[in-house]
């Protein structure tokens, strides 16, 4: 008999279930299988009703973020291990099973004007290296799940995702708004010395985004 990997997956339909449950699944062992590989196996072979998002299958699209043993991870580039517990990103409203509601994040782009003005002159541009780095943010929203202070829907504290957006714009020579001021009005001072934000794609959110927005204000 072939070896199996046993995992638990969070199942909950807020519309019909009285409470969430953790369901156990056995996945045939495969060398270097991923968490996403396990979810795809469950959907195809065991239970097509399992709800989860995914897109590119390796580290580009930012859709397959979830929590592995309570920590935010991308399911496509996390190797599958025995005994893992897979749950949804905890800080966002749940739709069903592993799927959270991401729509609010798009609405925030308009609400906080997280874009450059129209008709900028793009001919000669010097972008700092930090800005280019932050352009690699896959918008997977894992950082929100790792943040101890973020709460969805609260205007008091923007959270690391918005702070990365603000820093991206701060570093963009075309942007005219005062993003540092904006970051402070969204409570970035609460981030001082916290450093608990985490990015599964290797962006150092505290160093490259948050500390820049914090530091400049202090020196004013």
């Amino acid at each position, binding site marked *: 008999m072939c070896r199996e990997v046993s995992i638990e997956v969070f199942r909950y339909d807020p519309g019909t279930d009285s409470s969430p449950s953790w369901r156990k699944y056995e996945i045939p062992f495969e060398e270097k299988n*991923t968490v996403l590989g396990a979810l795809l196996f469950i959907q*195809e072979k065991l239970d097509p009703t399992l709800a989860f998002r995914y*897109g590119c*299958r390796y580290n580009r699209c930012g859709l397959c973020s979830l929590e592995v043993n309570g920590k935010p991870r991308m399911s496509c580039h996390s190797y599958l291990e025995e005994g893992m517990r897979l749950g949804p990103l905890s800080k966002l409203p749940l739709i069903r099973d592993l799927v959270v509601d991401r729509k609010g994040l798009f609405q925030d782009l*308009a609400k906080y004007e997280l*874009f450059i003005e129209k008709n900028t002159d*793009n001919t*000669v541009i010097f972008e700092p290296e930090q800005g280019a780095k932050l*352009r690699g943010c*896959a918008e997977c929203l894992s950082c929100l799940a790792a943040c101890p202070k973020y709460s969805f829907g609260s205007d008091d504290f923007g959270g690391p995702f918005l702070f990365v957006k603000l820093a991206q714009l701060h570093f963009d020579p075309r942007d005219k708004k005062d993003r540092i001021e904006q970051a402070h009005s969204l409570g970035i001072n609460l981030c001082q010395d916290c450093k608990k934000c985490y990015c599964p794609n290797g962006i150092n959110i505290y160093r490259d985004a948050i500390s820049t927005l914090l530091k400049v204000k202090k020196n004013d």
Partner: protein
Amino acid sequence: MRVESCDVLCLGGGGAGITAAVTAAEYGANVILVSKEPLGYGDTRISMGLTSFPGVVEGDSLELFYQDLLKGGEYLNDPELAWIMAEMNPFGVQLLESYGHLFQRNNKGLIGSDVAYLIGGHSLPRSIGCPPGGGISMGNALRAGAARSNIRVFEEVLASSLLCSGEHVAGAVCFDICRGEVFLIRAGAVIIATGGAGWLYYPHTDCNSGVNGDGYALAYNVGAKLIDMEQVQFMPFGLTHPASVCGVYVGEPSLAAPKGLIRNRNGEVILSGLGTMTRAQVTNAMAVELSRGGGTEYGGLLLDLEPNLALPEGRQMWNVRKERGQLNIVRFAYGEDAYRWKKPWDVTPTAHYFMGGIMVNTSGQSSVPGLYAAGQAMGGIHGANRLGSVSLAELFVFGYIAGKAAAKECIGQKPLDCSQGQEEAAGNIKSLSGRKGLYSPLVLQRRLQKTMWENVGIARVEKGLRTALKEIEEIEETCENLKIASQISYNRDIVHTIEIKHMLTVAKLITEAALMRCETRGAHLRLDFPEKDEKNWRRNIIVFKENNNFKIQSEAVKF
């Protein structure tokens, strides 16, 4: 049933869809954009971000770029569309930057010759990048551009069919995936920007999971003509294992330059000098070897990059790729030695892009009144093979063209009556939930994908194509007997059902066109007709539906 109304309805939330929607709004239209995934999370985002930008290197010109497009496309291109592509390419690049993207600059702050890459099939370096974010930065910028505009965005909504008022397209039946709701959108014009159909070849595709060819089927079902659907570009180097990353892209021919080799299972060299070859040339050579039984236990061939390490420029290439993060996936799947090019990579071609698509005129208008297409969903620009990095610029050029034309057509027009067939079309989706049949729609997708890869993939013969047509027909019949879950929110069975119907339609169009083209040209390799037939086949293949019957015909190219 909820009914929404707009002037312009744009289907698709990637580069072409967002550009079309934002442009239509700028020209005064009331716009709704519908995206099957969260907005901006599709193939544009997962691309490497290399974008054509002719003219950065001395000696380059629009005319030379245009000639490269035709030569690369083996002269199946629509010359008018290819010329627009060349002429408006610089504009497209600027348009994307105006949403917030930034391409890499040199030390003078300019997009100059020193930041341009040479990619296979281009006669000069004219591809610009944006490391380290690549397409991710484009996706972010597109979302920002959409948020800046006054368009209404419906995320995770899928169109199941188009509605017409007489001959004119007048809206769509839509399914909201998160809410489980069927609703209608009435529109004066519809732009299809849903991308390609790489997922027909899953797992052998590097496309995003939503890329099922929905737009081709929607357009075909209302009578639109589609062109050269047999021309499916397979990127030569995709992973073969482990299963969860099979098909993921690891590089294009230029990756192997200057000294990389492709070997078969016995270590025999089957291809060298890859750096200057087009994607189609490399893929076709690999397909021939695989069909001879030269493949490994994983169904791949061995890409041996180690010879490059003997040369300073080869070692430099390794560094460049490492810096850009392009080798991480190889370390993840094949380990440290493969990452360092000390061990060959097991690779097989992977479905990447559809050159074919909805036939449009120079305004992006299809053969059906009120129906437009842009981006990969449209066909004709690239003929039989697309040159690297042009597909991204294409999104912004043709998204802009379609958005502008659609807005001009319908602003100030009275809303059309789309009640014809709407109840039935909506009822078809509403009645899916909780069906107690035998077959899982996802398993049917897998069955179709298997036959497409085996019989309508990188190497085709008449017998295999006929096998595929038979299999498609059988799966169609099986679709009458589906087992569908009854959850309201995020019911993937319903999504998979809408998709499998679209996929079957598109699979048939590809297979029929592949059967008709009795030659080998560009991405279309017929092992039973291994030569290019210039005398008989400088022709485009057009498919459409007439009086509810499938029609196929060929037309001389427009040169």
